[in-house]
């Protein structure tokens, strides 16, 4: 029978907090960038301009058809070289965080763009017609009339995707970047208390994600009654 020993947790809390900050940093940057890029992709995909729609569809299909962990590895292997040659960085500068954020953002944008595309399509066609009839250009009608309604409908889905993204940040362990999961793993490995540390980390993920999805559900209900 395994004897649990939780004594390595209190001393390592500051280190774990550093890891949590990395996880949150990746999540927030990837969500923000993913929504912006995802919106552009969705608009491209819905546009009447063939090549644009085709490009966006290709991008989305590509990223949705490969495993996230592989994308992260690609970026971990490619982006540092790219940055080094582009900005003349000293060899071996730590660009793991940047490459992780880039990888996540580009990957998540594919998923966000599908959510946003569905959101745009959920706004009745008559809204676009009414905005056009008032003399608005396509861009004005999108920005002022269609997108605000689409995003209001989409907020729960976008947040849920953000929660999934937060869980997926643990995959950066492939680049040995110490996010929350990576930090917990390192401490457990050092102290020979891997099981305890991973259980602890799992509990923290569980509490955070469950709490966040409760908030999303609350918001969703409020949206329904509004």
């Amino acid at each position, binding site marked *: 029978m395994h004897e649990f020993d939780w004594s390595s947790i209190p001393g390592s809390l500051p280190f774990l907090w550093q890891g949590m900050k990395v996880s949150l940093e990746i999540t927030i940057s990837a969500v923000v960038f993913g929504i912006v890029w995802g919106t552009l992709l969705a608009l491209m995909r819905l546009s009447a301009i063939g090549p644009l729609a085709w490009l966006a569809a290709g991008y989305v299909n590509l990223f949705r058809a490969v495993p996230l962990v592989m994308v992260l590895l690609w970026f971990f292997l490619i982006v540092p070289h790219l940055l080094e040659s582009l900005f003349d960085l000293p060899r071996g500068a730590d660009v793991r965080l940047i490459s992780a954020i880039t990888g996540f953002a580009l990957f998540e944008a594919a998923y966000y763009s599908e959510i946003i595309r569905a959101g745009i399509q959920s706004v*009745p066609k*008559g*809204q676009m*017609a*009414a*905005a*056009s*009839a*008032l*003399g*608005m*250009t396509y861009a*004005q009608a999108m920005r*002022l*009339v269609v997108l*605000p*309604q689409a995003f*209001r409908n989409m907020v729960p889905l976008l947040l849920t995707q953000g929660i999934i993204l937060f869980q997926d940040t643990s995959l950066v362990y492939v680049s040995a970047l110490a996010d929350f999961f990576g930090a917990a793993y390192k401490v457990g490995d050092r102290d020979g208390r891997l099981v305890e540390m991973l259980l602890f980390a799992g509990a923290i993920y569980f509490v955070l994600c469950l709490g966040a999805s409760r908030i999303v559900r609350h918001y969703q209900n409020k949206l329904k009654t509004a």
Partner: protein
Amino acid sequence: MISMNKVSKHYGTFQVLAECTTQVQKGEVIVVCGPSGSGKSTLIKCVNGLEPFQSGEIIVNGISVGDPRTNLSKLRSTVGMVFQNFELFPHMSIIDNLCIAQLKVLGRTREQARDKGCRLLDRVGLGAQAEKYPGQLSGGQQQRVAIARALAMDPICMLFDEPTSALDPEMVNEVLDVMTELAQEGMTMMCVTHEMGFARRVANRVIFMDQGRIVEDDSKEAFFEHARSERAQQFLAKILHH
């Protein structure tokens, strides 16, 4: 004001509009009626280019709608349109619904737009509802707001696409009253509607459509007294019974 010459439109092999030709003079009120699927909504949507058409020509106030060089947004800002399902913007308050295009399309100042919006809301009897949201109003009220929103752009003519079809019967009249008043003030109007009472009261001419064709285009007296086509006679016999 509006002139259509042999306007045709088809989806694949299905002919939606077949060589429709008619004129609307300044200050005229035209009622367009006909069985469902006869192309009347499509016809009216071609006037401001919401529906493209393949052949023929539509001239609105001297500007060709089908010409690819025409700035359609600019043209549409001068032609008011009211839809069957109101299409108010649900995420904006009533007054913002009236102001948004004045601000963004006409470049009016906030004060000018608000002032104009409030006056028009008063005119359709909804001055007290300015800060509410569309979802809080009844269908009839929403449609009156939609009319006010179109009028806020100072349109040279108004298009109505079945403005009372989605309304509860008891709300039809409040909308028709606003439209009647507008007609009496001399607004040029093209209305797709089944409200024959409205047609009798205010229309100058009635256009009857069937299967994408303009079958009758005559003064309202001629249309109601002795419609020439059998199809129009059948149609009138059916809807005037009620």
